[in-house]
């Protein structure tokens, strides 16, 4: 009896012991026959597998993507912008020679420079201390429970 054979194959199928040829016999049986009710679940699985195998990639793969072109165009745009700004700003705010070197003594100049650098680093540190709050983001995302 054919059904007998199918049942024996199914038992081995569940154990992962069937060969590809045997699985083909099962597939052909389930895709082409009306099956008894108690084998319906197997039929669904084989129909599903068969259906899924027909899924196709809709887009043709590109191996020379236009992405590259976009990247270079943005580089060019930035370059043009930067050069443009550089040249125009240069004429409007030309440095005045007389404004430089107002401090003649070397000691005072060193002191002034030190003061300025200390101020910059202090402001930097103050700004950075506020960034601690960013850690809170990571803490909260970990609390989100994922439901599948």
């Amino acid at each position, binding site marked *: 009896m054919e059904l007998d054979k199918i049942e024996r194959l199914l038992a081995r*199928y*569940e*154990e*992962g*012991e069937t060969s*590809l040829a045997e*699985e083909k016999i099962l597939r052909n049986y389930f895709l082409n026959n009306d099956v008894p*009710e*108690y*084998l*319906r*679940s*197997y039929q*669904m*699985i084989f*129909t*599903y*597998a068969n*259906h*899924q*195998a027909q*899924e*196709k*990639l*809709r*887009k043709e*793969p*590109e*191996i*020379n*993507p236009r992405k590259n072109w976009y990247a270079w165009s943005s580089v060019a745009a930035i370059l043009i912008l930067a050069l443009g700004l550089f040249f125009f700003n240069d004429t409007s705010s030309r440095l005045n020679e007389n404004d430089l070197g107002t401090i003649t003594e070397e000691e005072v100049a060193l002191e002034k420079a030190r003061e300025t650098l200390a101020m910059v680093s202090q402001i930097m540190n103050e700004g950075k201390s506020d960034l601690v709050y960013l850690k809170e983001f990571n803490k909260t995302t970990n609390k989100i429970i*994922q439901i*599948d």
Partner: protein
Amino acid sequence: MKESTFLNIINPVKDKMYRLALRLLTSREAAEDATQEVILKLWNRKNRIKHYANVEAFAMTVTRNYCLDQLKSKQNNNLRIVHQNYESSNSSLQTEIEVNDEIQWLSRIIAGLPEQQKMIFQLRDIEQYDFEEIAEIMEMKQTAIRVALSRARKAIREQLIKKHNYGIR
């Protein structure tokens, strides 16, 4: 290697790569992007591709690794929630509705399996690779693959029966 020779190698495999990516990433867009990315990676390594005995298995391994990486990266964590809408282009409306319904059940059941079982079920029952090739793609022993496959097949059928009372009615 020329573009055309490369495409000739990739063309028979690309749908399989896409289906594996779709199984793992759920969303069609993500799967398409993943396939495209993997093909690009292979193209960049085209000079070494000749040295692989089984290019198809290699392409599948790269796809598998890429998709697992995508799943791990936080960026794609929301993809798991994306609902699948399967549409088939042929067959009449009535059978289409029935088929779609069953397909959605099964897709959901398989989506709930562990990643490894998902992939092995995909490679064996849908793509019909032999155990040797699956072992190569999954980088696992054949015996371990048989065990995982058996677990996947049993789990799918069990849940199908449990959830929808199929086979008992």
